[in-house]
């Protein structure tokens, strides 16, 4: 008996390999949007690598945090590479998250039987937001300081215990070295472990019900004599090699950003991130990073703190209901043009909100801010009505795929 057989008899890995890779049948008609999932896995691995390296040099204290972060940039060999990988990587993760979620919305991947896949995925998105927030407080730049102050002050709106919760979250009445200590603990342990764990759960729940596809039809309804879906292909080797070429293209883009536009016109790395925290010098306008600014715009669109927080909470939480707001039994919007148009307007509106959320709080931005909020909320309110009555074409019996 060879060593391989000896191990195979005792190991769960061969079965897991078959179940999730070699004999996991995925539809053969995935398009370019389907790269985002595997790219997110790659990016989380790379964030771990770059995070591990910067953590080795980072000093979590109010006195040294800023200097240690820039010490990495100037004095650590290839420190700039670790730093830019980590900073640009976090923004690119959100690019991929939005593509991944938009893909799910366009092809109805949240609909039965994949509701839990959507919900777990959406929880992951919220946890990524938390991870990013804790991360950008750590350099203790002036943006870190004031963004940390603004975001933690949202907790003050919790009825009765708001002030107490805020003090617990900050480790004192204001942002200080104690805040950095607890945020670092959250950033590198609890929240990160949650991300890893939930990614595993997300994939396991997906593999239980099978992947959706751009046509939104169920490939398990047409099986060959072996019981394999006729329109499915084993994930390994077909999608592993396909994703590998996707990795190549993506790493090229990622490297191009790091080497030639590391601050990405100060969208990925804001200017106020490059000046130390100063409690006496509040920023003229504390704007969040681009990936959170749509929600910030909605928060600001109501001139009342608690009202704004309620709208923002609604905006953040309402996508959880997508599987039940959509009443149409057909999944893919390829056959539901009205929903598709609504989605395109929704996405464009999301960009408008992201842009307006980055602007200073001036009266001239009130109108686009409010219009954006109305369109955002309106989309979710209209969705159940539209999807009940919209004209729907009949999806084909088999997935459409052109060999290339």
């Amino acid at each position, binding site marked *: 008996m060879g060593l391989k057989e000896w191990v195979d008899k005792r190991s769960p890995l061969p079965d897991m390999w078959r179940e999730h890779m070699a004999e996991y049948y995925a539809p*053969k008609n995935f398009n370019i949007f389907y790269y985002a999932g595997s790219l997110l896995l790659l990016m989380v691995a790379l964030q771990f690598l770059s995070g591990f390296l910067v953590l080795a040099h980072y000093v979590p204290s109010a006195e040294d945090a800023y200097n240690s972060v*820039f*010490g990495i*940039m*100037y*004095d650590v060999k290839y420190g*700039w*590479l670790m730093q*830019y990988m980590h900073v640009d990587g976090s923004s690119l993760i959100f690019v991929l998250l939005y593509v991944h979620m938009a893909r799910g919305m366009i092809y109805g991947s949240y609909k039965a039987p994949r509701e839990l896949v959507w919900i777990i995925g959406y929880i992951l998105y919220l946890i990524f937001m938390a991870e990013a927030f804790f991360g950008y407080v750590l350099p203790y730049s002036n943006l870190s300081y004031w963004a940390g102050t603004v975001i933690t002050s949202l907790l003050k709106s919790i009825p009765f215990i708001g002030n107490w919760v805020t003090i617990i979250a900050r480790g004192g009445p204001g942002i200080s070295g104690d805040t950095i200590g607890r945020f670092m603990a959250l950033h590198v342990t609890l929240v990160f472990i949650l991300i890893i764990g939930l990614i595993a759960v997300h994939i396991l729940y997906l593999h239980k019900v099978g992947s959706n596809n751009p046509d939104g039809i169920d490939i398990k309804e047409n099986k060959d004599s072996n019981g394999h879906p006729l329109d499915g*292909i084993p994930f390994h*080797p*077909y999608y592993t*090699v*396909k994703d*590998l*070429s996707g*990795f*190549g*293209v993506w*790493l*090229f883009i990622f*490297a*191009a950003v*790091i*080497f*030639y536009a*590391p*601050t990405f016109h100060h969208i990925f790395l804001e*200017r*106020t991130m*490059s*000046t130390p925290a100063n409690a006496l010098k509040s920023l003229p306008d504390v704007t969040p990073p681009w990936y959170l600014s749509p929600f910030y715009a909605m928060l600001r669109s109501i001139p009342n703190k608690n009202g704004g927080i309620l709208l923002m909470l609604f905006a953040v939480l309402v996508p959880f209901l997508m599987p039940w707001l959509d009443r149409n039994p057909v999944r893919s919007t390829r056959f539901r*043009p009205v929903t*598709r*148009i609504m989605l*395109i*307007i929704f996405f*464009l*509106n999301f960009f*408008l909100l992201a*842009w307006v959320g980055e*602007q200073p709080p001036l009266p*001239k*931005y009130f*109108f*686009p801010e409010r*219009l954006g909020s109305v369109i955002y909320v309106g989309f979710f309110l209209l969705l159940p009505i539209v999807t009940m009555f919209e004209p729907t074409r009949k999806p084909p019996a088999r997935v459409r*795929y052109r*060999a*290339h």
Partner: protein
Amino acid sequence: MKKLLVIGTLVAGLGMGGMVAAEAETAPVLMKPKYTYDAKTIIAGAKLFAMHCMVCHSVQFMRYEFLTKDLGMSKADVHKYIMLPTGAGYKANMVSAMPVNMASKWFGRPPPDLSQMERYKSQDWIYTYLLSFYQDSKRPSGWNNHVFPNVAMPDVLAPMGGTWSEKGKLLKAGNESQQKFRKQVTDIVAFLRFVSDPSVIQRHEDGPWVLGLFALFTVFAYLLKKAYWKDVK
């Protein structure tokens, strides 16, 4: 119909963005320095910085040796033009000789460290700021600035660029022509830009190799994908 609707939304969105952007900004318009960003400009800026700025301002994250390692300046030149006569270490950080507590006393607040100033304020801002000083007898230093009103810093470059009134009238000519003075200010800006991110040299050196490697990887990965997917009909 579908396309029309999409185009309609796009046009509406763009129109609204344009409308908002068209409104006048209150801040003064920043000028753009024109130069080629290379070692020669940066070194010229470093010499000017050491002569005129480093009396008060540190760039504490820079080390003298970076000027040799990254820009190819000779060690002798660094000693001659950049380093303080106090004999600071060649590997040490570029820190001003002015004690911070004294500087706070003299100016009301210590002159800021300029290591990340270009990243924080932008090169256009620094360039315009350095060219926007005017004489103002109401200020303790005798100077004021259009870009940074009531700034504590005096116009240390006035002997070169001349003394100006608030309305932009030349009160006392400097010993440089305006063209040469602007070139010198541009050099200082280029140096501060370099200081705020010295990795640019190595990034641009390594970049083509890294991108080439990934491009090559993509080609082979794509060929592999092609070969495997041949039998997917």
